């Protein structure tokens, strides 16, 4: 099973209207090459699930700026004015989710859980429309799993089997998103022969395709 594909082929996996998870935190750990190619190709009506919409000119925020996004599920849009503008003018639907809840919802989808109970958001507008469950006198919101058609992640090192290793603070949402999508594509910064099995952060069974790694 050869998982290596070209950047073009990777982007071909993403069709108009799909739900796409993109790893990264304000650009750090975003799969920048895939994003740039997606912008070139102009795939549209995407639903993006990501921690944030980064910046107008850096990271996945470019997709927003290029009006390829129909809906965003995210914890923060404050660094990308275009997301805010599109939201205010009702061009793009924005669902704001607490960061820890977003992480757990994605993890829940990958882990086969029907949902998780979090105290985060109780007593705020985040609880609107959600079931509240009391456990030992404390209220929790029932938050449901969040999955995607495709997850685009960025690996600092990817081995020939598809095992992934992340450097420093690039890990963020990449690991959990790799578990929660139908198709997972990793953009490799570097291809290595093998990663020490102890240090693998995303096991190869989660990875469908590998792009990049040109040395």
């Amino acid at each position, binding site marked *: 099973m050869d998982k290596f594909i070209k950047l073009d082929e990777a982007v071909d996996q993403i069709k108009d209207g799909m739900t796409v998870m993109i790893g990264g935190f304000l650009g750090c750990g975003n799969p920048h090459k895939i994003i740039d190619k997606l912008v070139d190709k102009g795939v549209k009506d995407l639903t993006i699930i990501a921690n944030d919409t980064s910046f107008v000119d850096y990271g996945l925020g470019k997709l927003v700026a290029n009006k390829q996004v129909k809906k965003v599920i995210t914890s923060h849009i404050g660094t990308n004015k275009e997301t805010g503008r599109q939201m205010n003018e009702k061009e793009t639907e924005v669902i704001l989710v607490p960061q820890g809840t977003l992480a757990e919802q994605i993890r829940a989808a990958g882990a086969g859980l029907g949902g998780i109970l979090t105290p985060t958001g109780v007593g705020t507008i985040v609880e609107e429309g959600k079931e509240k469950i009391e456990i030992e006198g404390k209220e929790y919101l029932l938050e449901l799993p969040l999955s995607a058609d495709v997850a685009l992640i960025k690996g600092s090192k990817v081995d020939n089997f598809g095992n992934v290793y992340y450097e*420093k603070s690039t890990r963020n949402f990449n690991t959990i998103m790799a578990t929660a999508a139908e198709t997972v594509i990793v953009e490799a910064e570097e291809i290595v022969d093998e990663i020490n099995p102890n240090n693998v952060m995303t096991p190869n069974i989660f990875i469908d395709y590998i792009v990049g790694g040109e040395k």
Partner: protein
Amino acid sequence: MDKKQIKEVIAKRVAKEFSDGDVVNLGIGLPTKVANYIADDIKVILQSENGFIGLGQAPEKGKEDKDLTNAGAQPVTIKKGGAFFDSAESFAIIRGGHVDATVLGALQVDEDGNLANWMIPGKMVPGMGGAMDLVVGAKKVIIAMVHTQKGRPKILKKCQLPLTAKNQVDMIITEMGVIKVTDKGLVLTELGPEVTVEDVKSSTEAELIIADDLKKMDV
């Protein structure tokens, strides 16, 4: 005091709340400055919600690492003994009560310890980021802010803006004083430099209980 001095005073006082070994998450803006005032004889571990503990200072110019940023996308460093993790673990740490204190700014805070700091409907809606989890999960929630906004009180009887969390704030530190949130209400325990109790009261909409042993803010 000018605005810069005010912020330094607040940051300096907040730093005194930490004990040796504390795990602390500092919000963006004023709270970030607190790191500069942590006493040399204690070790405080800073958590960065984008995925590590051991948050260090900004790198020297030219030594920035694209793979190492803080939750505000600024290049930072990691201290010896630090550790990286993913976002699920980062918020397991935060929500799970493994952060001893979080320091955040506020738009409004009220007598019940309610906090509003993430949106002004129709005007500013950046998203809550990690704030809602931090405020619910940290053992101690410290609000560090300038006492008023253009002369208008921010410490209210009841928050009017959408809440970040209900009943979670433990203390409020401003340039005018230190206020603890208790079951009986807000208690002014320390008075800021250059102000009187009457000054604080007139800049605060919420009812203030004045501590019997009211002290001068140590900054």
